[in-house]
Every structure is written in structure tokens, then in C-alpha cells.
């Protein structure tokens, strides 16, 4: 009944892809890259708005994955694993503190989200603008939860904080959003 089958959870196919990759299956590895390169880049760029750095980090990440594939632990969510690894890597590479990014205003709609009227669109753009003004950590949790569809537990794992802190971050972000809204 409830939204228990989170898109990023319960992916036995993920598990199999990961196992095949660990056994040295190049096709599985290439599939992992193909499936996740786009979202991974988007996430990385929001953390550190430096295209070359993000690309380097991604290449290193995948190269290391292949090199160390025999020693990797199991995972049920490749996306989660990749996000967490990329984040760690980027923070190590960019010893500068990431600056918040002001996103371009063109929107790429994920799915048919039934935004019809101009009013809705204006509201959406205004909200997205307000989100881009939030502290960078708030932006990150919102993005991980609603854009990348991670569960609370997964976000906690990526950010290396506990689940309650993640929820608190979102709560605070919403309060801030509402202060500036309308």
C-alpha cells in the first residue's frame, strides 16, 4: 500500500549486475557506467561546480572500481554506492569548500508531472529559485530525496549522518523555503 518499493531499493537486478561486474564481466561494468554516468555527473556538479574535476573524479572512481573489483563488498543499490563514493572522492579532491551553485533556469522535466498552467510553472520556477538559495547542505538533501529518489536511510549513508539528522535537515529546509515563499 505505502510507497515501500522505493525505486532505488530492492533491486535484485542491481545485485546481479554488481556480482557480474565483480566477477570481471566488462559488459556489466559498462552497463553500470551507462546507467549512472548522467545522474552521477549531475550530483557531482552540484557538489563541486567544476566540470573537469567532476569528470576526473568519475573516471578515477570507475577505474578504481574495476581495479579493486575483487575486494568490493556486496551492494543492493549500485546508484547508492556510486553516489557515496563520488561524494567522498570529490571532497578529497576539492579541498576547497564547495560553493552553492545557482542552477540554470531551464527545467528538464523528469516525467509527466502534469504541470499545465502558467501559474504552476511560475510557482515551480520560483520554488526552484528559492531552493537554489538554500544552504548547500539543505539543497543536497532535497536533491537526494526528491530528485535522485534515495530513501532516508540511503541519504544518511551517503552523507554519513544519522537518519534523524537527515529528516531534520529537510524539515529545516522546508521552514526556510516557506519563509521566503509568497
Amino acid at each position, binding site marked *: *500500500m*505505502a*510507497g515501500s*518499493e522505493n*525505486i532505488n531499493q*530492492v*533491486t*535484485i*537486478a*542491481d545485485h*546481479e549486475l554488481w556480482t557480474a561486474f565483480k566477477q570481471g564481466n*566488462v559488459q556489466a561494468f*559498462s552497463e553500470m*557506467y*551507462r*546507467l549512472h*554516468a*548522467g*545522474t552521477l*555527473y*549531475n550530483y557531482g*556538479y*552540484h557538489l563541486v561546480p567544476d566540470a573537469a574535476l567532476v*569528470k576526473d573524479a*568519475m*573516471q578515477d572512481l*570507475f*577505474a578504481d572500481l*574495476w*581495479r579493486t573489483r575483487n575486494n568490493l563488498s556486496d551492494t543492493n543499490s549500485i546508484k547508492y554506492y556510486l553516489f557515496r563514493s563520488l561524494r567522498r572522492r570529490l571532497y578529497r579532491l576539492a579541498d576547497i569548500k564547495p560553493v552553492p551553485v545557482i*542552477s*540554470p533556469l*531551464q*527545467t*528538464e*522535466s*523528469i*516525467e*509527466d*508531472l502534469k*504541470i499545465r498552467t502558467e501559474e504552476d510553472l511560475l*510557482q*515551480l520556477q520560483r*520554488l*526552484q529559485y528559492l*531552493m537554489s538559495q538554500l544552504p548547500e547542505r539543505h539543497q543536497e538533501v532535497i*536533491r537526494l530525496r*526528491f*530528485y535522485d*529518489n534515495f*530513501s*532516508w536511510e540511503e541519504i544518511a549513508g551517503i552523507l554519513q549522518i544519522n537518519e534523524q539528522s537527515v*529528516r531534520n535537515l*529537510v*524539515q529545516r529546509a*522546508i*521552514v526556510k*523555503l*516557506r519563509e521566503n*515563499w509568497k
Partner: protein
Amino acid sequence: MDYSVYDTADFVCDDSFVAWVKEGRDEAHWKEVIARYPAQREAMLQARAIILAAAQLPAFQLKEKEQQLMWENIQGTMEPAEKTVVKLSRNYYWYWAAALLCIVAGATIWWMRPAPAPAMYSRLLQEAKLEGKKRIEEINEEKHPRTISLPDGSSVVLQPGARISFPACPDHKCSREVYLSGAAFFEVSRNTMQPFIVYANEMVINVLGTSFNVKAYEQDSLVEVHVRTGKIAVSVKPLGNKVVANLSANQQAVLTRSTLAVAVLQTIPQVNTRKMDEAVVYSFEFSDTPVDSVMTTIENAYGVHINYDQALLADCRLTASLTDEPLIEKIRLICKALEAGCIIEGDEITLTAKGCRPNVIEN
């Protein structure tokens, strides 16, 4: 649950609420909440707007070329570094090439034989106990996709090598159950009284009037269905009729045949999935429309490339209603109107027109 104490943030953090806003799940439950807590309406609307805005945040896109280039770099690191080893592995290529040649040759010889029906497909048909019922089987032995019209008005674009079996009577007379082996794109006509069911290897797809792609090759380890518009329900035949996944537009279910596990994936919008996704928002009602803008509409909607002599057709106009036609049919009708020859090869469509005849099209 007492929703009267909820505020906007609580709704935003409620997983079931998010699932309703983003995927339409738990619809009845949340409709009831709105009715029961009218004072919470505003908070719910705000929460909904926030979730939708966040779900559609602008993305920084990795260009396909860059993604490819990065992959090549990664692959570069996957080869052993020493030169001698590189040489050795290069020699191996010849073994691989030779082996591949044998496989290709073998496959070609095998292919020349009349293709036997794939085992899984035959077994499914057998198990369905359809003897005595009139059924039609279509096999696409051509090199390009082929459109099949079903008796109920639905259409199927069969990819090369795909085969389909369907009942020979109109849908109000008998069930709309089809059996598929290979890859196909379905556009299903709406009929809530008679569900449309696709059996594809172990996967069972229950359709509620929609369009979707199926990939179910006998030899593949996966069965995939990718929803373009509308909704479908997926179940796994060996596990009984319990629905294991409900999919809506831009979602994909992948069944791993060895484990019978089904994974649901959200289509990543920027990679390779533009094809057909937006077809639903394009208008295919053309009234005295210049041919080049008709072509552009179709190119954009389906992600195909149409080659034709633009100068020759510059003054041609078309009037046609093509909304309910699948791509292949649209192209066929346009070619017919223009008295053009057309070749469809994957994403490439080539029109050879002689210009337009005054009685058909006049500027």
C-alpha cells in the same frame, strides 16, 4: 494517522505522500485525507508544489560525447600497462576475431534454416491450451520493424525476428491475450472491459490502454518493458498472477529470468530515452502544414532522422490526422500522400519523393 497535526514539512517527509505526488500511488488514501482534513489542504498543496519542484530541479547534463570519451578513458585504465602484455592481448584479438567469425558463420547457417519457434514462446502457447481457438501468428522476417494491426484496433511494431500470436476474433468476442518473443512496441486501444495481456517469456504485462516497449528474446537473461504513456501492471508467470510492479510513464521493469526478480527503474531523461517519450505531447493533426514542419515534428517526437530532399518538397503541404497511428504507419501514410518511396532503417528514414502533385498538395 492523525494528519491534523501535520505541517507542510511533515507531508514533504511522508514517504507515502511523496509516492502519491510523484507516482500517483495510494491515491484513494490521500483523497480521503484531503476530504477528512480540509484545514490541511493548503499545507498539502504547498508540500506537493515543493516535491514537484525538487523532483524537476534543473540538471547539469553530461553530453553523450563526453560520456563516451570518459568511458574510453576508463577503459584505457582497464588494460594492463606493460607493452608486452598489450601486444599479447592484441594477438588475442585475432583469436577473438576468428572465434567471432565462426560464430557468425554458424549463426548464419543456422539462420538460413526456417526459424523454429523459440522454446519458451511455444511452451507458453501450449500451456495456455489454445487448441481449437483461432489464432494468428505474425513473424517479422524482414530487416526493419514491421507494424501489425490487431483485431481490437491496437497496433504492434515488431522488431526484426520478433514473433507474436494473437486471437483472430475482435476483442468483444474473445480475450486480448498476446504472446510475444523478441522486441516490440505496443500501442494498445483502450477497453476497460477486456484487459490486454502480453505474455513475454516469464513476464506477464497487464495493460490498461497505453504504449510501451517490450524486449523478450528467448536467449536473453532479462525481459524488459518500458512504458511510454499510460500505466501497466507487471506480474511474473511462474510466481502466479500477483502484480509485482505497477509502472507508469517513463518507468521500466526489468525481469531477471534466472531469479524471477523484477526491478523497477526510473528512466533517466537525458540518456537515450528521448525516443517516443514526448510523442504524447506532440500534435499529429496537420492541416495544410508545410512538409518540413511535419517532418520536424515527427523527428522530434520519435527521435528519428528523416532524410529527404528539402528543396524538392519546400512548397508541399500536408493535411492529415495521424495522432493514433504508430510511427511506421505515420511514415507510410505520409509517403503515400507524397507518392514517395520510403525506407525505414532503425532511426533513419529516407524518403524519395518526386515533388508534389498539384491535386494532392497545392501551395
